[in-house]
Each structure stands twice: as C-alpha cells, then as structure tokens.
C-alpha cells in the first residue's frame, strides 16, 4: 500500500480520474438538461459513438481537430432533431426509442467505420495545454492544469449549464416543463419548443462528448464508448439532476476507476481481487443511486409525453 500513497502516484491518480471523467461529464451535463425538460434519452451512448466516429473520420481526412469537434457537434444536433421528432412531435415511448437510438448509433458508427476506414489509424488531436503559471505549481499544476483544452472546456461548462438551468428564463421554462408541463402550457410556454431545445442541447453535448473521447484517445474502434453513455445517464440520477452533482459523480467515478487502475499497475491488487475491483465504480454508483433516490425526486414529468387537453 505504501507505494500508492506516494505523492507522484496520487498526483497521477487525480489527473487520470479527471481524464476518465471528462467524456461522461459532458454527456451527463447534456442528459441532465434533457431530463430536466422531462425527456429521457437512453440513446446517449449511440449519439456519442456517432459523434466520436464523425470527429475521428473528419480529423483522419482533414487533419483538423477543430473540424472534428464541429462535426461531432453537428452529428449530435442531427440526432437531437430526430429524437425530438420521435419523442415530442410523435410522443413515442421514450425508453424504447432511446434504446433504438443507441442501437442505431452503435450499428451505424461501426458500419461507417468498417466501410470508410477499416484499419484503425491514429489521429492527432489537441496537445495538452499547460496553463501558464498554474501548471507550474508543483503537484497541483500536474493534477489540474496540464490537460487538453477539451478537459478545461468540459469543466467550464458545469457552471455554464448550472447558470442556464437556474438563472435564465430558458432554464425556468425547462424546469417547469419537466415538472408540470400542463402548468407551463397554461402560462403560454410552448412545451414542444422547450423540449426540442433541451433535446438538441443534450444531444449536441453527447455528440461533443463522443468527439472529445475519440480525439483524446486518438483512435476509433467499434463500440469505442464501451457504455460511457449509460454511465452518463446514471450520473444524472446520481447528481440529482444538478450539473455540480453530475460533475461530482463523474469525478468520483473517474477517481475510483483510476485508483483501481493504479493499484493494479503497482501490483497492490491482482487476480480475483482485481476482477472484483473492476466492479467498484459500478457498485459505488449503484449504492449512491439507492441512497440518493430516497431523498431527491426526479422531474415529475420525466418520460411523460405532453398532450394538451388530456
């Protein structure tokens, strides 16, 4: 154990946890906005995969990481529009529709990858940006200020999204529509418009999350996300539908993962114990969910289509 508690090791674990947390945090922020409007999207992982492939392929072809980000965002917007049509305009059952989106994303991203790329070739993304002065602080700088710009962007989005939800008129509409759409409707708020907007933002961030994942890893592979989109959904519940809560959950998940990883690297755990440890992040999430779900209510109208006059 002593090896683990060296400063260098702890510094690495924190930095690693932040990197692991980034894509799921991005997707989770989006999903939080969507769920606040009363729309559950189980297809996050599929949208992430599409965003990841879109970004990867764009960078492979053009070499421009910025173009890759833009394509990831565009893919997210397109999927958002589709999901809006399905769940808002046609009022389809959200659980099943979301699974459909997931399977679509999983299949299409793989299909396009096999057709267009074939053998996975590495891409170059953004190099790490060592923030001047801050990154020079011993330890602290290494942990927090020597990451990719995408990591900073993601964490800066937390207060932005919190502000959007809590301090803007749109956020008020969002919360009202998610809790009591009939009330919002009776005050002239267009439930459909608010939900469409929320879904578009949610999917935009999911597509962006996928792009960030692909760019950070510098590679694409079938099912690259490996279920991170579903973890993002769990994080929304974990975080009680609050951006800061989602961030806390993502960081916790990332830190537990990186800790277990470091233990294995150092040979602190191995064999059967190692297999058990692999479940730690998931177990922790489940435990947290059980505890939290007892105290905090989800948006009352979550998964419920709105139909005026009903």
């Amino acid at each position, binding site marked *: 154990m002593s090896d683990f508690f060296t400063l*260098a*090791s702890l510094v*690495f674990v924190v930095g*690693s946890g932040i*990197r*692991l947390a980034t*894509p799921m945090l991005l997707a989770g922020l989006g999903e939080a906005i969507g769920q606040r409007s009363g729309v559950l999207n189980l297809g996050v992982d*599929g949208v992430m995969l599409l965003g990841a492939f879109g970004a990867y392929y764009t960078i492979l072809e053009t070499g421009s990481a910025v173009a890759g980000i833009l394509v990831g965002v565009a893919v997210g917007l397109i999927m958002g529009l589709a999901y809006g049509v*399905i769940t808002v305009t*046609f*009022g*389809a*059952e959200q659980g*099943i*529709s979301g*699974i*459909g*989106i*997931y*399977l*679509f994303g*999983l*299949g*299409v*991203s*793989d*299909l396009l*990858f*096999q*057709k267009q790329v*074939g*053998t*996975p*070739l*590495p891409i170059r993304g953004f190099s790490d940006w060592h923030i001047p002065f801050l990154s020079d602080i011993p330890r602290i700088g290494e942990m927090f200020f020597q990451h990719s710009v995408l990591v900073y962007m993601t964490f800066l989005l937390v207060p932005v999204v919190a502000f959007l939800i809590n301090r803007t008129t749109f956020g008020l509409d969002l919360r009202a529509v998610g809790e009591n759409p009939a009330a919002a409707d009776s005050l002239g708020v267009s439930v459909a418009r608010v939900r469409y907007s929320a879904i578009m933002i949610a999917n935009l961030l999911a597509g962006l999350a996928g792009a960030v*994942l692909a760019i*950070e*890893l*510098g*590679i694409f*592979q*079938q*099912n*690259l996300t*490996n279920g*991170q989109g579903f973890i993002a959904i769990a994080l929304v519940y974990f975080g009680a539908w609050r951006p800061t809560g989602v961030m806390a959950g993502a960081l916790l998940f990332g830190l537990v*993962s*990186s800790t277990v*990883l*470091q233990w*294995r*690297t*150092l*040979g602190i755990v*191995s064999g059967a114990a*190692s297999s058990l*440890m*692999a479940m730690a992040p998931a177990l922790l999430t489940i435990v947290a969910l059980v505890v939290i779900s007892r105290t905090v209510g989800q948006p009352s109208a979550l998964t419920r*289509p709105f139909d005026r006059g*009903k």
Partner: protein
Amino acid sequence: MRRFKLRSKRQGGRIILSALVATLGLLAGACGSDGGSGGAATTTASPSTTATPTTTASPSTTDAPATTEPPAEFRVAIVAPSASNDLAFTQSIVDGVAALSGVTEVHVTDGTFIVDEAAAAVRAYAEDGYDLVIAHGSQYGGALELIAPDFPDTAFAWGTSGNTFGLANVSAYTAASDEGGYVMGAMAAALSESGVVGVVGPIEVGDAKLYVDGFVAGAAAQDAGVEVNVNYIQSFSDVALAAEAAQGHVANGADVLTGTAQMVVGATGVAAEHGAKWFGTQANQTPLGADIVVASQVYKWEVVLQGVIDGIKAGDLGGEAHEINLANGGLVIEFNDAIDIGDVKAVGEAAIAGLGDGTLTTAGPPAEFRVAIVAPSASNDLAFTQSIVDGVAALSGVTEVHVTDGTFIVDEAAAAVRAYAEDGYDLVIAHGSQYGGALELIAPDFPDTAFAWGTSGNTFGLANVSAYTAASDEGGYVMGAMAAALSESGVVGVVGPIEVGDAKLYVDGFVAGAAAQDAGVEVNVNYIQSFSDVALAAEAAQGHVANGADVLTGTAQMVVGATGVAAEHGAKWFGTQANQTPLGADIVVASQVYKWEVVLQGVIDGIKAGDLGGEAHEINLANGGLVIEFNDAIDIGDVKAVGEAAIAGLGDGTLTTGS
C-alpha cells in the same frame, strides 16, 4: 367510450412508432456488424487449382471379343434440346455419335427443350430396346434419374454433367470447355485492338459458365488491361436478344466477340455486320461467317463415347463420369485459315500446349469451400479478430469467407455459429475462447459440418471440432527479452485484458522473457478487466508512463487506446496478435503476428479429404505459425539481436518460456 377509443388508438400509434424506432435501431445494428464484415472482411479467397472430381477415361482401344461374327446390332438414341444442325450444343453430340464405330443405327429426337417431352422420348427409346440412350442436356438429369432405374438393362448417357446418380447403367459426360474458353480468351485479348471484348452467354450454369469463366481467365492472363464484358441474356433460345446483346457490346467498343449456346447465331450476324471478330464454341462455327470466325472450340464427344459403347458391348452399362478436354483430344481448337491472325495463332497454340501439359490452368471454378468466422471484436482490430480474418484470407482452396464480427455477446455468437452451420458452410470458426461452451452444444447438432475454435486445446472429444491455440508465450518471451534490453528507465508496462487464455500466455511469456534478459527490470502488469474499454486501456498506459515505464506492450483489442499514449510520451511499443505498426510507425518496435493459416490449411485439407476434425493444433515459432515482424523504421541496434537469439533458442528448444 368513443373518446377513450380514440385515445387508445393514438397510444397504439405511439407504441407502434416506438417499436419502429427500436426496430430501425436493431436493423442498423445488424447492418453494422454484418455490413461491416460484408464491406471489409468478406473476402473471396483467391481461386486455387481446379480440383476436378471427374476422372478422364482414356480412349480405349477396341478389343473386339469375336471378330468372326457379323457386326452386332447397336442402336443409339439421342434426345437433345435444340436442332441437330444448330452449329452448337446439339450438333456436337450428333456429330460425335456419327463418328463412333460399332454403331448400327442412330435415332435423334431434337428440339425437346421441354423437359417432359424429352423424358417421354428417353423412356420410349428405352422401351424400344435401344442399346444406348443419350439425354443430351444437363436439364434432363432429374428425369433420367427417375427413368434409368426402370430399365436396368439399358445403358444411358447424359451430359453435360459429372453425376451418374450412383446408377450402374448411367454414364455421365462433360466437357472441360473452360480450357477452350481459356484459349479463346487469350487469343481474343491478343487480337482486340480496342481493348474491349464482348461475351454473350445464356444462363450462368453448366457448360456455358465453364466456357465463359475460362474465356475471362484466358483474356485476363493474356492481357489484364483488356476489358471483358459478359452478358448472360438468361435465355438459350432468344436469338433476337443475343443479337441485341452483341449490338450492346459493339456499342461499348468491343471489336472481338464470343458466345456460347444455340442462340448465339444472332450474335454472329451482328459481328459480321460490324466487322468484329468471333470465337465459336461447341461446334465449328465458321459457316456462320467465314470472314469473322477466327477459331472454334469443337467438342469431340466420340472420344469418350467410344469407350462407353465398347464398355456396354462388354457388359458394362455405365456408372462412370467422363470428360473431354484438350489433353485427351476430346476438345479441339479448329482455326479458320481464311483469316490471317498473325501472331495471335501462336498465342492460342501456346495456351493449348500449356493447358495440355498442365503448366497452365484455366483457374476455373475451384471446388466450393465456404468458411465462416465468428469473432468478438472488429475484423480490423489489429489484434485478435484480425489475426483470424487475415489467416483465413491466406488459405488456399477456400472459395468464400463470411465474417460475423463484434459478437462480444456469447449468445449472439452462438446464434451466428448455428446459422452458418445451417447455411451449409464447410468450416465454421468460432474465434474466441469464450465461445467454447456454446460450441460444445452446437457442434453435435451438425455432425457433417466442421467447426474450429480457439484459442483452446479442447475439442470436447467431438470428431467435427478442431481446436487451435497459439504458443503466444513464445512471442511474449521474445518481446519481453527485447523490451528489457531496450528500456532505459528499467521499467516496462503491460496492459492486459483479463488474466485468462491467450492474453495470460502472452503476458506470462513477456514477464519471463524480460526477467531472463535482465532481472533488474521492473515489469508492471495491469489487467484492466475489460477487452473493450479503450479509454481505460489508455489510462492504464498513462499509469505505466507515470510510473516511469518507457517501453510498453499489451494484448487484446482495447490496446489501441494504449498505443496512442505510448506515442504521445515517446514510449516504445511491442505488439501482438497482428502487425501493429499502423498504430504508430515510430513507436511499434516489433509485433508477434499469428499465422493461423499454418494450422488451418491442414484442417481444411483434412475436411476436403473427409476428416472433419477432432484434433488440437498449435501455432508456434517453430512451425512458422508465430512470426516476429520487426518495424525496420526504428533502429533498435543490438536489441534486435536479442530478439533473434530468443527466437532461435525457442525454435530449437534450447530456451523455454517457463510456462
């Protein structure tokens, strides 16, 4: 009430919509894995030597049993689909029978393109006591199979086919018309000035397909730059359509044409009209255009029929299959000397000679052998799945490969394995040790299908299951030794999936090799407990680097995340399962590559010989199934010698991996 109904209807709509969306997703999912394999992974293995099952009966010398008696009566009847003078298929048999000796009477029923009519004629001839009834048309096979047993004392012959239905009174005959086709194709390619050649065929089966395939192969062999356009018009009789097809070829620039079956008479007219040259088959077609028909492949059925008749007279009513070809003189290329084709004739003659003495092959259709692969990750994962896909692609004697990849869910894989077996694939490969349990249940249900699975040494005692495994600890040992020699920091990192099977072998070998090379080097092993989590593999590599590692390795498909990290930090990488140089030309020092074909070729050859499996196979350095491929772009100095010493030592047994 009514309002309620309205609502429920609407809800129904929603449910249907939801289901639709889900189905769409599923479809896309299915497309994803299936289409993926269809796009990149389904490869048709390069055609191999023709393994023709037919045996050639050498034209027997007549050994008459009683020379004193007057010639015994021997009556032959022919039933054929088109006219006796069609300058094509039917004429070939009529001419052939006419050339036979020892035949006292020949009767022909021609134009019976309706099978029922032909069957009635065959039966009537048999009842009439004909000594040999020839059903000249592959479409008559079914009828003959029913009729022949009713007349056990009558001999039948039919073609073109290699199938006697196991009946002792049926002879089958076929023509290696691909040989003539090849000769014609070579000449056509040499003759064409425009570089475009047109082919008019009937339906893509039997003799016509043989000829056309041979023609295409010959043309390609002569000049790969020549474009051969093939148009099967889906009719044996539509002369007008054949003419139109020929017009089409000419319009597309063809200046040399060929065609097979009786409807081509329409095409030769078009050729004549436009001054295009023509190559004929089945009979000498010079009469169709003395100034355009360059050469014809002529069938001499008498070469094999004489033997059949002699056999009948000696009491042997049949039971064998015969083939005419260039070597036995049953196929003859007849040139039209009225046309001077200069050197092109030499091309033809060279082809004839080559085919006759076996130095050339028509590369006609090889015996069909279909292989299916079910594997857990993507076909191009530069790792486990790619190794089997590449391995199968390198096999000879395989006509079709189909891959279902990405089936990391065992149930899905099991369903795919079962579907392939039901589909009649000759070999179904379940590529993943996790599939063993499913295979053990499935294989007994398909005793005639061969299965292979790996990596494992267990065949479950089933005679139709082959197991294969890789001694990847050997490669691991070599890599480990090199890694230890290469590392400057004295720390080496390993990223593994789960501590089982092939991954464990490799990692254990690696650790042993590193220790053997330099016991002072620290090897940190991190099994991340996932085969698929790319992000986690990347973080594991980050961890190794943070702990001072300057050389990394890893196994399984998720390591593509780790190589990126290695590249970023300038760490060196050792790959396994496939050549991973594409992942980083400046960091991948060497890769252990699996050559599954080394053992699978034996498995396939065994299956063709009737041995469906039951054995376990291993690839290793000694048998060439494992190969260490170095990336010459990286100069590793003496370290390469370390690797080569390890390879040599493991190969000759002076070293062991210790596992």
